[in-house]
Every structure is written in C-alpha cells, then in structure tokens.
C-alpha cells in the first residue's frame, strides 16, 4: 500500500487537468452565449458556466458523477432500478451478453488448448492461425455478425454474446497452450518414471501449473468480451445496453450521457477484471503459488 499516495496524486492531477480542459473546451460556447445576451462575463462566472452547461463539449467530472448517480443510485432509491432510463438496466444488458460470451469463448478456448497440447497435428495446423488471428482487427466483423444473425431470426443477447465469445476465444487459446506446456521437462520426466498416463499427467501436473496463465488470459478475455458486447450493440439501431447509450448520446449531442455510459463501462470492466484477480489470488494462494502475484493489478 506504499504506492497509495503516488496513485492518489496522479489521479488528483488527472482530475485537475480535466477541470482545466473543461474550461478551455467549453469557454467558446459560454462566451458566445454571453455576447448574444450582451453581458460581460467575469472570469469566475466563465469558470462556473463552463462547469455547468447542459451540453458541454467536455463535461466536468462532477457533472458526470452526478449523472452517474442520477441514473444508478438515485433510481434504486426510487425503486426503479430496472427502468429504461437507468444505467443499471443498460449495464445489465451489456453485462449479461459479456458474461455469456465470455463463458462460451473461454470454455471453447480451454478445450482447444487441451487438444493442441495433446495432438501434434492440431498444434501444427491451428496454432499459427491462432497466433496470427491476434494481429487481425477481429472487431471489424461485429456489425456483420449482428446483421447476419438478425436475418436468420436471432436477436438480442445471442449475437452480442457470439462476438464476445469470438474476441475472448483466441487470447485464452494462446495463453492456455503456454500454460499447459509450462511444466519443465524435469517434472514431466518424473511423472514418466511413475509411468503416469496422459490423463493423470493432465489433471495432476499440466492443469495445476497452467493456473497463473489461465487467470492472465481470463483477464484479457474479459476485457475483450466487454468491448465486443459494447461494439455489438452499435449496429442494431442501438436500443439497449451501454453501447446503445453511447450511440444515442452521440446522435443527440448528449455528451454527459456518453461520458456516464463510458464510465459505467469502465467501472464494469474494472469490477469484472478485479473479481477475476481476486479469484486468482485466492486460488493461487491455496495452491501455494500465491506469493508472487500479490498486487498484480489488471
């Protein structure tokens, strides 16, 4: 925790910079309004105005925070947590697609990795493609998946989950192959002297030693899944979900709405990746590998 002070300092500086930038970016509008009304703005009036416009070019942090509270906490207090104006509702839509896709993508990825480690033919055929696919902007196919699945009658959750699954699939394959291969030749030789079969080698040696790699790729996969679900919400006319909030916000110039959706997405990503990190810490600690992953932020 000795790095708490530096972190807080950096965050404070960033927020301060944000306020200054808000003055700079919104002052033109404020000055135009003042000229039209025929009044002269004093510096303090100008600053106050740039931090409280309805549709600022850059909303000030407290405006975003207020909007976030208005669309989450305040709505819960009114008992309307799942209303269509609530970010909890939109966040849940995005989160459910993300989670479904993440589970499909990571399970498929782990299965393929197991196949690759045990079959030379599969390794040599698939692995170069799995690695090459990480250099390709896969996200570009998101609109196509949505529209094609829509034309065969699939809507809502499944198409978005497919994109999420696709995005989290390859990082998990590559990470897990590395992990399942991480036992040293000494360890594998030892098991051979016990004449252990492939099955037991997998469960007793390969799988346990792949755990650190698994959690690292789960974190990458989770972040990728969330991005996939958000982008997957763009092309369908943008009705529900955090991506939809961003798109409607950009259509109608509702900057505060875009920023609050962006922060909701960021908070979601941080919570999910943080949760995986906590499971990682607990698991590795139980397995006696805990020491060195302490304080590995996402």
């Amino acid at each position, binding site marked *: 925790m*000795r*790095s708490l*002070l*530096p*972190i*807080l*300092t*950096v*965050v404070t500086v*960033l927020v301060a910079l944000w306020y200054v930038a808000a003055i700079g*970016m919104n002052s033109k509008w404020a000055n135009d309004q003042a000229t039209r009304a025929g009044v002269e703005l004093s510096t303090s009036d100008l600053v106050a105005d740039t931090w409280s416009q309805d549709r600022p*070019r850059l909303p000030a942090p407290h405006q975003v925070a207020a909007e976030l509270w208005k669309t989450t906490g305040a709505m819960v207090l009114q008992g309307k947590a799942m209303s269509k104006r609530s970010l909890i509702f939109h966040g849940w839509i995005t989160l459910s697609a993300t989670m479904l896709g993440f589970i499909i993508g990571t399970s498929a990825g782990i299965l393929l990795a197991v196949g690759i480690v045990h079959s*030379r*033919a599969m*390794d*040599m*055929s*698939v*692995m*170069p*493609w799995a690695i*090459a696919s*990480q*250099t*390709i*902007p896969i*996200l*570009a*196919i998101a*609109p*196509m998946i949505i*529209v*094609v699945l829509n*034309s*065969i009658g699939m809507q809502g959750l499944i198409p978005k989950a497919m994109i999420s699954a696709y995005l989290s699939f390859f990082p998990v394959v590559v990470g897990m192959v590395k992990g399942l291969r991480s036992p040293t030749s000494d360890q594998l030789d030892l098991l051979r002297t016990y004449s252990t079969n492939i099955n037991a080698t997998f469960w007793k040696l390969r799988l346990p030693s792949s755990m650190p790699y698994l959690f690292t790729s789960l974190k990458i996969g989770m*972040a990728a899944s*969330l*991005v996939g679900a*958000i*982008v997957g919400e*763009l*092309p369908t006319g943008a009705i529900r979900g*955090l991506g939809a909030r*961003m*798109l409607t*916000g*950009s259509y109608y*110039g509702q*900057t505060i709405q*875009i*920023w609050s*959706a*962006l922060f909701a*997405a*960021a908070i979601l*990503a*941080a919570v999910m*990746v943080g949760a995986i990190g906590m499971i990682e810490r607990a698991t590795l600690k139980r397995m006696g590998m805990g020491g060195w992953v302490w304080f590995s*932020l*996402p």
Partner: protein
Amino acid sequence: MGLVFLAIGVWAFGYWLNHKLANGSMRDTRAVKLAVPAIFGITIIVMWELLVRGLEVPSVILPPPSAIAVKFAQSLDILWVDFVQTFVKGALSGYIIGCGSAFIVAILIDRSPFLQQGLLPVGNFIAALPIVGTAPILVMWFGFDWQSKAAVVVAMVFFPMLVNTVQGLAATDQMQRDQIDTWSASYWQALIKLRLPAAMPAVFNGLKIATTLALIGAIVAEFFGSPIKGMGFRISTEVGKLGLDMVWAEITVAALAGSAFYGTVAMIEKGMTFWHPSQRK
C-alpha cells in the same frame, strides 16, 4: 448433397495429410512447419466453398470465398481508397503520435520514482478499460475525417505503450547500473548506452500490441461517423445493404493490413534486438 460429401471428404483428406506430416520423419523441417498450417487453411476455405454451394446458403448470410475473391478483384480501387483513409491516415498517424508521445512521457517520468509508482498502476488500469468507448466523444471533438480516428488510436495505444516502456526502462539490473556508474557516465549516457537498449524488447512488445489496437480503433471509430470512405464506413454501410461479399473483401484487407503491420514491427524488432535471448536460435 454431393458437394457436402465432397466437403467431408476434403476434410478427411486434409486431416489425414496433416496427421501424416505432423507425426512423420520430416516433422521438424521448415517446409513441413509451413505446409501444415497452409494445408489447414486451404482445407477450411475449400470446405467453406463446397458447403456454401452444397447447402445453398444465401449469399446474404455467407458468400462463398470465390465470390469474395471476385468482388475483391473488381473493387480494388474502392478498397485502396478505404485502406488509405483508415490505415494510412487514421491508424498509422495515430499510432506514430500515440506511441511516440507515450515513449517520451515514459522517459520523462522515469526520472521520478514517485511518478512511476503512481502512473504504472493507473496506466495498467486504464489499459484494461474499454477505451474504444471514447470514439463517439472524439468524433464529436475532431470531426468526421481521419483526425478523429487518429485521436481514438492515440487514446488506445498510449497507455499500453507507456506501461511497457516504463517497465522496459527498469529492466537493467543493479550490477549493470553500478558498472556504468563506475565509468562515471552521466544520466543521458547511461540512458542511451545502457537503459534504452535494454528497454528495447519491452518497447517492441508495446509497439506490437499497439499495432492491433490501432487498426481496431480506427475501424470502430468510423462506425460513429466518417466521410464516405474508410474501412469501417464501408463495412457498416455494406452490411446495411446486405452486400456481404464487399464486407468480407474489406475484412480481408483489414486482416492483411493487420498482419503486415505486425509483421513489419516484428521484423524491425528482430533487427534491433538480435542480442536478446528471445531472438536467438
């Protein structure tokens, strides 16, 4: 139906061939290592073609590869215009600005351990966030043309690059730093002769991660508004018109551009970090 059985036959043959090659006596030669994934790729494409034709899948769902190839060849001029707009103007300029500024900032904060301790966790944290979400905001600020795409790319590549460079600059060990101190090297001499070269593997790691991010950022930003050219623009409008062969042609361009971009950076890395254990045979 005949074509479907043919597809299954092609799969079985491809599997048999790869199984033979991968477990045969030649399996560690360079030729086999290239041939096996190539056979796999060709098998997939042939099966795709046969299955789409055999099952009569409508081309608005999945066009056959041959149709995509024909469309690709027919619309080279459009694809080139889109490539220039998205890759050269949007992705590449953003990549250079973002990575360049991250590199300079990393060198600046490297002098202050306090800033490092603060910025590294924050940077790591931001690097895991869905930064593509800033696209609508940046499109609003910088207009529809390539400047806004470059800005999204800058936002996406900055923090991964920063974190990697800072970690790279810390890659020297005490012994090496003591050695350079005994030669009474100045800060700048130590930086240029010892720490920057030692940082190169990590720097290139950041540069390689950033290549993919740059292309994704440039394409996705175009979904939020763009002039009437660009890969993301073409994909979203052609999807609306159900011109899926054109969409696949654009995706092919994106895949080729992404791999070529990554490959170029990897080749430069090979030339500059030939001394590092990961590059030795």
